[in-house]
């Protein structure tokens, strides 16, 4: 499997460490009401879809950036890859508006 790194081009998946669902970027706030339940869900529950899945890969043996990869879990086809930083900043900007 080759991951199209946004800065470095296609890289062997072996260079990466897999973290899981990209929704893990959105960590719940400890000060919100119901934080206990929110953290329990955040740590333990997953959508685990069959089909398109957004997920976090860490380029451990490379430039050590976090990448959000959009991949089809039925075919292993990779549809998109962006720096997790850009994804997080974009969603923060969206939430701020």
């Amino acid at each position, binding site marked *: 499997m080759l991951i199209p790194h946004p800065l470095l081009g296609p890289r062997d998946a072996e260079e990466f460490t897999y973290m899981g669902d990209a929704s893990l970027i959105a960590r719940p706030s400890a000060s919100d009401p119901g934080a206990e*339940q929110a953290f329990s869900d955040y740590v333990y529950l997953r959508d*685990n879809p*069959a089909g398109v899945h957004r997920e976090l890969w860490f380029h451990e043996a490379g430039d050590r950036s976090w990448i959000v990869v959009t*991949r089809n*879990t039925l075919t292993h086809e990779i549809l998109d890859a962006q720096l997790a930083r850009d994804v997080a900043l974009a969603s923060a900007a969206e939430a701020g508006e």
Partner: protein
Amino acid sequence: MKYSGFRVVAEALFGHKGWKPLWRDPDPKPAYDFVIVGGGGHGLATAYYLAKTFAEKRIAVLEKRWLGSGNIGRNTTIIRSNYLLPGNEPFYEFSMKLWEGLEQDLNFNAMVSQRGILNLIHSDAQRDAYRRRGNAMLLAGADAQLLDREAVRRMYPYLNFDNARFPIKGGLLQARAGTARHDGVAWGYARGADLRGVDIIQNCEVTGFQIEGGKVVGVETSRGPIKAKKCGVCVAGSSSRVMEKAGMRLPIESHVIQAFVSEGLKPTINGVITFGAGHFYISQSDKGGLVFGGDLDGYNTYAQRGNLPVVEDVARCGMALMPAIGRARLLRNWGGIMDMSMDGSPIIDRTPIEGLYFNGGWCYGGFKATPASGYAFAHLLSTDAPHPTAAAYRLDRFARGYLIDEKGAGAQPNLH
């Protein structure tokens, strides 16, 4: 029809014309007391024990494809009870005891072969860990023997004892462990369930659950709606997909694990050997093929195939352990989809939806658990109380902090 040596001889004399199909192929009835979703090892075992041990009637097993088409047909056939934690070990030892009586119970040859499993030790710290594990096994009524280097050498002289990085210093042997014929287990349970009136309905995919007022009243299937008083889901590998239809999110990710088999060779490996320094295990089938496997690929997937880095890693581990394996040619490799749970241990429990019960999260240890999983799930379905050996396998243990994490790896499913 009862199977026996006499029967084989009698059939041989008359051209084998008397053998009958092992199970019926019924159409679904409009309603059942128990609907089991998933006609694999665990689902069929559940139906069998429901009918036999708990004397329940009106049971159906719904299978999306053909009977035994999931992970019961894709595993590496190892049975063992060499676990550490109190939530796990009594359950797996219960399973081991059921394996020991399985063929007589089912009147079916499941080729259970107690050829022993040997976990190799490569360091002093690992010896301490395995001594502790062995003692935990003995406490739960299992068998365990700590072997020194020379005892291991007598068993398997061809292992690489003097590997510069990972020398073999001993091993933990469970002599009662071994292998079983995986398809035979599914067929035996299916036949046993069918003989007791269970309807095994193949090519019948569950497409939804009928839930009224927080209570399950039936399932929607590709062959029409079926009413059910209680519904048990045993679809490990696809648990998230099926339970999502009931609106549930699970503490599970689906991952692929690959397995390999070599060309047939003369008898070389008597039991099951696991490498202690990397993830690699190997046994030899009765046909002579070396059956081996290693780590998960490590990313979410529902494709029943893996990628090459793990193939390479498994081959490397095999060469480090047993250099002679380099001369064997690979016949085929395949992948199976695992329910990887957040603590590496399974779930057998009720759900927040009344009448809906869940059995899954087996990681890559589901095959050995088949008899106990079926028994415990049948116990839960019939009595609404967990079987004593499976009482720790609660769905809410994650939220409550009662994890059963053998490896201590935390909520990272691809590390279990």
